């Protein structure tokens, strides 16, 4: 495979990526686009911090600030953090369970392109008459009142990318249920696979309420429905509920895969089996389950009444227990291990105190009467950046270093990696620790400016400096990526030396058909088991070498997504009433989508076979087991 790829021209490579259904390539697509959106969201964060650097600053106007703030939250959550995690899930999870690919390779590609086109659509709002400006939570009364098209961009963009995510979720769950290699029982699955599984289940149940809520909003704005119009009997609290029924599970969708990445890292770089594997699995499931019963903790001040507040307060607190189980199991994993401080590992080590700090402030917010003070203040901003940046973003950075060799066959520079780490880590605490106190001192969030001499000036300045540090860290990382790619020093199967799970048993990057022969799994950490038993191949095989059936590439996912993208513009401008071209655009877009879907379902697509002879050929060249 690699030999074929090298011969390709640039255009052919692009075409290859636009039509690919290979989970490893889709992972790279997710990584690139998620990374891009992370930079965009980060840039918006920098704008926020510059504006709030000093009292009464006029760097951004009031309206622009709200757009920047809204787009920062939306971009980071939907277009950066989730896709980046999906990148790792795609790259690693099928390998970890010894699968040939995901269950629905075509849908995998469709999911990606929907996400990308949705994300592009959302961000085009900047150039086409204004971004959404009602916060990432898009509360109904304000969103309905918002002028211009910002909110429509939000609604339509998130709908499209939300479908993409839902598809990805279903796909992963089916993959894990159906495609595990022989011997890979549920209780032998690596933790990253487990967290992928639970997070995907959360996606399946959490995205529908969001989609429904967004549709209500679209109908209200476009067809004059009255879901949220109070004078017509509507009720804006419905939006809040639907949003948070999605929104709270969403934060666990983000953090569970992050936990999974860290679980892998702790075990690898302590050279030790995960302590309390069963408990970790159980805690993951429990967190997923609780995730659906606590959403109203975002609504303590709405006026739901003391009974509801008390119930949700207690339910929320309960989540601290399974999360604590995880924290302590990780601690006991490194306890008694042999710890080496590689870049991924220092991220993991930094994660523990950062996340615990963020988690305990979460529990403080769960105390409803206390939350009356904390809600919508900078304390909340501090809380969620501690869990998100200190949990999810650190995991993404760690995962990037950890899995880079597996995805690209070359290692990121360790020294630059550590520089990135220190800048980012110090900057992160500098930025957000102080925000707890800003909140306690009465500073509300989502303010575009503040009046001086309220005791907030110094703290805001410090916070802004911290953000600068983070930016420097990110820039060093970009440099690292470019340098590594240029140098392109190839590495073998298990570049970290202590890999434990199946993905480290095959070449980096793996051949496009993954395992030439499906492995037989004989226990938890199966690669480690083989290694300890001195098996040079790193795998025991479950089947003789034979033909492999592979799916065909397809361009249809791009077309389907493009159709919706076009249709969205039609829908959006149809609203204006004075644009006769809008309706045809809407219809043409939908037609493109439906016709390409029809083509897909009517045309038989049976895939192709890689013959045994070809595999033997590859094997001789050492491309299937990395022994070259």
């Amino acid at each position, binding site marked *: 495979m690699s030999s074929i790829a090298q011969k390709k021209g640039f255009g052919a490579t692009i075409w290859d990526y636009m039509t690919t259904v290979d989970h490893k390539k889709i992972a790279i697509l997710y990584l690139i686009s998620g990374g891009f959106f992370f930079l965009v969201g980060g840039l918006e964060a920098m704008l926020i911090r510059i504006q709030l650097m000093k009292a009464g600053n006029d760097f951004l106007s009031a309206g622009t600030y709200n757009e920047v703030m809204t787009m920062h939250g939306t971009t980071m959550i939907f277009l950066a953090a989730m896709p980046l995690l999906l990148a790792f899930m795609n790259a690693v999870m099928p390998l970890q369970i010894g699968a040939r690919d995901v269950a629905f390779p075509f849908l995998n590609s469709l999911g990606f392109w929907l996400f990308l086109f949705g994300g592009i659509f959302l961000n085009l709002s900047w150039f086409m008459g204004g971004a959404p400006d009602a916060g990432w939570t898009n509360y109904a*009364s304000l969103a309905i009142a918002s002028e211009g098209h910002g909110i429509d961009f939000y609604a339509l963009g998130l709908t499209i990318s939300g479908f993409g995510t839902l598809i990805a979720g279903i796909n992963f769950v089916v993959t894990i249920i159906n495609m595990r290699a022989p011997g890979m029982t549920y209780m032998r699955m690596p933790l990253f696979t487990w967290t992928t599984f639970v997070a995907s289940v959360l996606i399946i149940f959490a995205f529908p309420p969001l989609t429904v809520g967004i549709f209500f909003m679209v109908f209200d704005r476009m067809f004059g429905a009255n879901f949220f119009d109070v004078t017509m009997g509507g009720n804006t609290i419905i939006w809040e509920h639907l949003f948070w029924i999605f929104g709270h599970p969403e934060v666990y969708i983000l953090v569970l895969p992050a936990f999974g990445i860290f679980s892998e890292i702790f075990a690898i770089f302590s050279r030790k089996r995960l302590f309390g594997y069963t*408990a970790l699995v159980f805690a993951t499931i429990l967190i997923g389950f609780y995730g659906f019963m606590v959403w109203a903790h975002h609504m303590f001040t709405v006026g739901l009444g003391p009974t509801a507040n008390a119930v949700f307060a207690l339910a929320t607190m309960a989540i601290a227990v399974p999360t604590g189980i995880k924290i302590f199991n990780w601690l006991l994993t490194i306890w008694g291990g042999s710890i*080496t401080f590689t870049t991924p590992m220092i991220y993991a080590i930094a994660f523990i*105190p950062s996340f615990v700090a963020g988690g305990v402030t979460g529990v403080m917010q769960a105390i409803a009467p206390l939350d009356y003070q904390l809600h919508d203040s900078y304390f909340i901003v501090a809380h969620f950046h501690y869990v998100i940046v200190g949990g999810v973003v650190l995991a993404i950075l760690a995962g990037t270093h950890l899995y880079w060799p597996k995805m690209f066959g070359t290692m990121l520079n360790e020294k630059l990696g550590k520089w990135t780490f220190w800048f980012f880590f110090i900057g992160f605490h500098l930025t957000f620790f102080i925000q707890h106190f800003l909140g306690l001192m*009465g500073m*509300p969030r989502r303010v575009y400016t503040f009046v001086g001499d309220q005791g907030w000036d110094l703290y805001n300045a410090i916070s802004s400096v911290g953000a600068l540090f983070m930016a420097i860290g990110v820039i060093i990382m970009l440099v690292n990526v470019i340098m590594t790619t240029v140098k392109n020093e190839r590495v073998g199967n298990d570049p970290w030396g202590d890999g434990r799970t199946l993905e480290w048993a095959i070449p980096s990057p793996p051949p496009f058909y993954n395992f030439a022969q499906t492995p037989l799994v004989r226990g938890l950490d199966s690669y480690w088991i083989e290694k300890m038993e001195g098996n040079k191949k790193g795998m025991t095989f479950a089947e003789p070498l034979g033909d492999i059936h592979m799916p065909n590439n397809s361009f249809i996912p791009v077309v389907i997504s493009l159709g919706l993208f076009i249709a969205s513009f039609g829908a959006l401008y149809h609203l204006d009433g004075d644009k006769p071209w809008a309706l045809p655009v809407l219809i043409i877009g939908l037609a493109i989508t439906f016709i390409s879907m029809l083509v897909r379902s009517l045309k038989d697509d049976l895939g192709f076979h890689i013959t045994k002879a070809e595999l033997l050929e590859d094997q001789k060249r050492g491309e299937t087991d990395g022994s070259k």
Partner: protein
Amino acid sequence: MVNGLKKWRLFALLSALLVFLAGCGQKEISTLIPAGEVAADQFNLLILSSAVMLFVIVVVVIIYVLALVKFRRSKLGDELIPEQVEGSSRLEFIWTAVPIVLLLILAVPTVYSTFDLADISTMDVEAEEGDGMTNLTVNVTGKLYWWEFEYPEYGIVTAQELVVPTDERVYFNLIAADVKHSFWIPSIGGKLDVNPENVNTFYLTFDQESSELDDGVFYGKCAELCGPSHALMDFKVKTMNAEDFDQWVAAMQEEEPAPVEGDLAQQGEELFGADGAGCIACHATSGTGTSGAVGPNLATFGDRNRVAGYLEHDEENLKNWISDPQEYKPGNLMPDDETLNGGEPFSDQELDALAAYLMGLTVEE
């Protein structure tokens, strides 16, 4: 109960002084320096939970540091393959049980306080002779970037500056006239949303007279994003003892505002809308009335602490505001001066007159 609360308050005050002597913000606005019973309760919860959380963090950090110190590969040698421990049900039990206990410790006051702070049963109870409790009710309406305060018992309305007596419960009925807002006076007590579809009710108690503060007022905030000028949707709170409060009410209730003094101010009054058109179309200048006005009631404008809720209270800012409201509160609903003045901006002289008139509107002396 009340006695117990007093003790709590004392305790809260002391701990506030001790723990946060440095860096706990300003009295006018910081939740760390509570000036009301509700804020004090919440502050105590903050201290309690912080202590629990600190304990959790300390435990985690101790294990963590020990592990990192003891088990580095550089110390243990490169070749070591550690024992592959599976787990331990005893440890597992401990770190399940201890957090549960800690959470139970938090749960009890949480539930108690949740119900306690939501208790508005005495709202409509007539004050008994001599118990000193008058249980004032204020109807608050949140509007695009300003606040209206109606005192239904007294038939008076004011805006932007809430005036309340100390040492008694004040009940608030909150409703939004347009989009959702949230009513927050950080140093007095936690917030409650101001929804467009329903009236939310809660109470606060004000324990300190605002005249003791450097700025003479407590700061109130809108805490729910409500549009471009959400950041500027501030209000101020004047607290005074019952006697002063009664006087203020009486002054507000006077049907006829005090006659305007001085030529300039009279000219301003004229401009303001003596003939019923102009500013007066939206802004009332008498304290009596009901809620629902388009613009803030200006009866007490001269007594106010800020122009437009957040600008320094001087004529300069007032004139700036009148001549270009959008500059100071983007997206607010006040028309620009050309619309108000028949297509022409106000001249300097006219602005002076308006300012003189408005600054003279006062019910305090």
